[in-house]
C-alpha cells in the first residue's frame, strides 16, 4: 500500500508513523518468543543477558541447560556417556519421560478427536442436519468453557465415572479414570474436538456436493465415494484439524493437573512445576525446543492450507 498521490503532507507523515506503529506491534508479538532462544544458551543460571553474552564471548554461551534436560532425574548422570548412560537417560530422565508421555497422550487423543470430529463435521455440513446450530454450539463449547471449569468437572467425574449410573438406581463399581492414561486421553480428545470440527467444516464449506453425486451416478457405493472422492479433497483440512488437536493436547496443563496421576507427567506439567518451584534456564531450553516445534507445525499447516485451496480451486486473491 502506497500513499495516494493526492495525500497532504500531514497524511503522508501519518502514514509513515502508522508503519512505525505497526512495526512496533509486530515487535511486541514476536520479541518475547525470540528473546528466550539466545537466553537458553546462557552459561550462567540467570535470565538476562550477561556482559559476556553481549560481547559475543563464546565463554558466555553453553549447552549446559540442554544437557540438564537429559541428566535431570537420571540415576547416574556423571557416568561416561556410553550405551548404558543413554539407556539410563531414556528410562529415568524426567524431561525425556515427560516428552514420551506428551507424545503418547497427544497421539491417541488426536486420533480419537480426529475420527469423531471428522465424522461429525461431515454430518454437520449436510443441509439436512436437524438441530444443526444447537448441536454445533454444544460440540464447540469445550473450547469456550473456561478450562478450570472443565477440569473441575472432569476431576469429579473421572474419580468415579460410574456415579452417573446411580441416577438409574444402579450401584455399580468400576475403576477410576483419574490417574490413568485413558482418562487424560479422553479429556484431551474432548478439548481437541472443537478445533477438528472448525477446520473440517471450514474445508467442507467449499466442497462441491455434485462431485459426490457424480461418483454415485457412475456407480460408486457410498463407501467408495467417501474414500476416493470426499476424503482426498478434505484431507488437508482433516490434517490441520488433527495438528490443532495435537497441539491442544501437547500444550494442555490444567486438565492434567486435575486428573493425571504421577505417572502421567507431561511436558507442560513438568514446565508448570519447574516454573512454580524454582525457575531455572532449563525451562528456557525446553521453551526453545517447543518454539522450534511450533515453527515446524505452523509451516506444515500453512502448506496444507495452500494445498487445500489449490485442489479445491480457490485461488488466493
Amino acid at each position, binding site marked *: 500500500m502506497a500513499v495516494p498521490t493526492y495525500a497532504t503532507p500531514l497524511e503522508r507523515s501519518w502514514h509513515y508513523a502508522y508503519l512505525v506503529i505497526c512495526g512496533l506491534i509486530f515487535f511486541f508479538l514476536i520479541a*518475547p*518468543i525470540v528473546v528466550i532462544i539466545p537466553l537458553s544458551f546462557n552459561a550462567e543460571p540467570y535470565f538476562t543477558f550477561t556482559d559476556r553474552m553481549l560481547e559475543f564471548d563464546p565463554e558466555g554461551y553453553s549447552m549446559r541447560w540442554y544437557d540438564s534436560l537429559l541428566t535431570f532425574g537420571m540415576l547416574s548422570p556423571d557416568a561416561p556417556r556410553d550405551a548404558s548412560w543413554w539407556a539410563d537417560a531414556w528410562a529415568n530422565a524426567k524431561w525425556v519421560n515427560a516428552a514420551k508421555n506428551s507424545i503418547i497422550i497427544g497421539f491417541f487423543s488426536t486420533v480419537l478427536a480426529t475420527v469423531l470430529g471428522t465424522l461429525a463435521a461431515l454430518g454437520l455440513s449436510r443441509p439436512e442436519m436437524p438441530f444443526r446450530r444447537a448441536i454445533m454450539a454444544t460440540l464447540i463449547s469445550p473450547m469456550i468453557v473456561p478450562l478450570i471449569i472443565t477440569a*473441575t*468437572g472432569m476431576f469429579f467425574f473421572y474419580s468415579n465415572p460410574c456415579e452417573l449410573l446411580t441416577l438409574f438406581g444402579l450401584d455399580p463399581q468400576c475403576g477410576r479414570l483419574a490417574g490413568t492414561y485413558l482418562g487424560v486421553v479422553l479429556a484431551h480428545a474432548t478439548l481437541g474436538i472443537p478445533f477438528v470440527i472448525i477446520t473440517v467444516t471450514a474445508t467442507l464449506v467449499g466442497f462441491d456436493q455434485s462431485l459426490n453425486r457424480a461418483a454415485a451416478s457412475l456407480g460408486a457405493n457410498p463407501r467408495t465415494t467417501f474414500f476416493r472422492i470426499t476424503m482426498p479433497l478434505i484431507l488437508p483440512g482433516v490434517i490441520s484439524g488433527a495438528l490443532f488437536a495435537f497441539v491442544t493436547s501437547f500444550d494442555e496443563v*490444567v486438565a492434567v493437573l486435575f486428573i493425571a496421576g504421577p505417572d502421567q507427567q507431561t511436558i507442560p506439567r513438568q514446565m*508448570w512445576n519447574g516454573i512454580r518451584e524454582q525457575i531455572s534456564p532449563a525451562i528456557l531450553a525446553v521453551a526453545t525446543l517447543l*518454539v522450534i516445534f511450533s515453527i515446524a507445525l505452523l509451516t506444515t499447516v500453512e502448506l496444507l492450507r495452500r494445498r487445500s485451496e489449490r485442489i479445491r480451486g480457490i485461488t488466493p*486473491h
Partner: protein
Amino acid sequence: MANALDPHAAIVTTASGETDGTLTTADGKPLSRALARSQRRAKRRAFLLVLPLLAFILITFVVPIGQMLQRSFYNDGFSANMPQISQWFAENPRGTDPDEAAWTALANDLQVSAEARTIGVVGTRINYDVPGTRSLFTSTGRKVRRGIEPPYDQALLEMDEDWGSSTLWAAMRDASTPYTGNFYLASLDRTRADDGSIQQVEERQRVYVMLFMRTFWLSLLITGLTFLLGFPVAHLLATLPMRKSNLLMILVLLPFWTSLLVRTTSWMVLLQQQGVINDILVWLGVIGGSGRLQMIYNQTGTIIAMTHILLPFMILPLYSVMRTINPSYVRAARSLGATSWTAFRRIYFPQTLPGLGAGALLVFILAVGYYITPALVGGSSGQLISNMIAMHMTDTLNWSMAAALAALLLASVLILYWLYDRMVGIDNLKLG
C-alpha cells in the same frame, strides 16, 4: 432403476406415473410422500454421523460439568449423617429455641456419627458457614464416644460452651436439608443472619464480588488493548499485497501456535526485576539501578502477558473481514471531498465492525476464564476468579464453594457465547 431404497427415487418421475393429477415416482407412490421419506432418511443419516461425537461430548464434558454444578446447591454432608436433629429442624420453625428433644437428637446423632467416623464430614459442612467449627465437632465427637449422660444440654455445653451459640444452631438448621443456596449467597459476599435474613458479610471478608468485578474489568481492559494493537496490524495485513502480507502473517501466527506456557515464561523472563526490560531501561538511564520497575507478580504482569497471548484472536477475525472490504468505497468518499479521517470514520470503520465484534467477544470470553497466566505472573493483585476456583478445589477443599463460583462464571461465559453465536455465528469461527 428407481427403487424404494434409492434416495434419489423421489426425483425420478415418469410421465406415465402421472395419475389423477398428482405427481408420482416410478414405482407409483405419490411424489410428496416419497420426497418426505427420502428427506427423513437423509436427516437420519446426517444425524447418525454426528451421534458418536455428540454422545462422547455429552458423557465426557456436559455431564461432568453438570455433576460438578450440582455440588453448588446440593450438599448432604450434615443432613445424611445427622438424621435426628435434621428431623427436629424440619418439625420446628425457625426461631424455636432448642428444647430437650433437640439436645437429645443432637447428642444421639453426634454419638452415631462419631462411631461411624463421619463426624469430620459433618463438621466440614458446618465449617463452610461458620468458620472454625470443624474442630468443635471432631473434639466433641471424641468425647461423646467415651460416653454421654443426660441431661444432654448440660453435658454438651460442659464439653464446649460453643454448642450454645445461636449462629451455630442457625447454620445447622441451614444444613439440615441437602439443598442449599448458601454457597451462591457466599459467592456474592452475602450470608444468612441467625434469623434467616440475608445480609452482607463483614467488610474484610468481601472478596468474591471484588474478584468478579476485577475479572470483568481486566478482561474488558485486555479486550480494549488487543483492539488498539490489533486494528492497525490487521489493517496493514489486509491492504498489503498477498505475498508480503503472508510473510508478515507468520509473525502473528507463530505466537498463536507457540505453547501458552512458553509465552508466559518469556514474559516472566522479560518483566522480572533482574530481567531484560529492566536491564535495558537501566542501561538507557531511564531508571536508576535501585528503581527497577515491578512489572510482574501483579496486575501489570497479568495485563501485559494476557494481551500478548490473546492478540492473535483479535487480529485474525479483523483481518478476514478487512480483506473483503472493497477499497473503492474509501476512494469514492475521498473523491467526494471527505478527508482521510472522515473517510476512515464514516466509510471504512463501520465495515470492520463484524470482525471487531467477533474478535472482541472471543478475546473477552477467553480472558474471563483465564487461569494459567494469572496464576504464574499475577501475584496476588492479578488473580482472577478462575484462580479462586482452583484454590477452593485444591487448597481449602471447599468444593461446593468452587462449584458455586464456577456456576456463576460459566453462566456469564455462556451468555457471551450465545451472544457470539447470534452476532457472528459459530460457523464463522476461524483458526489461522
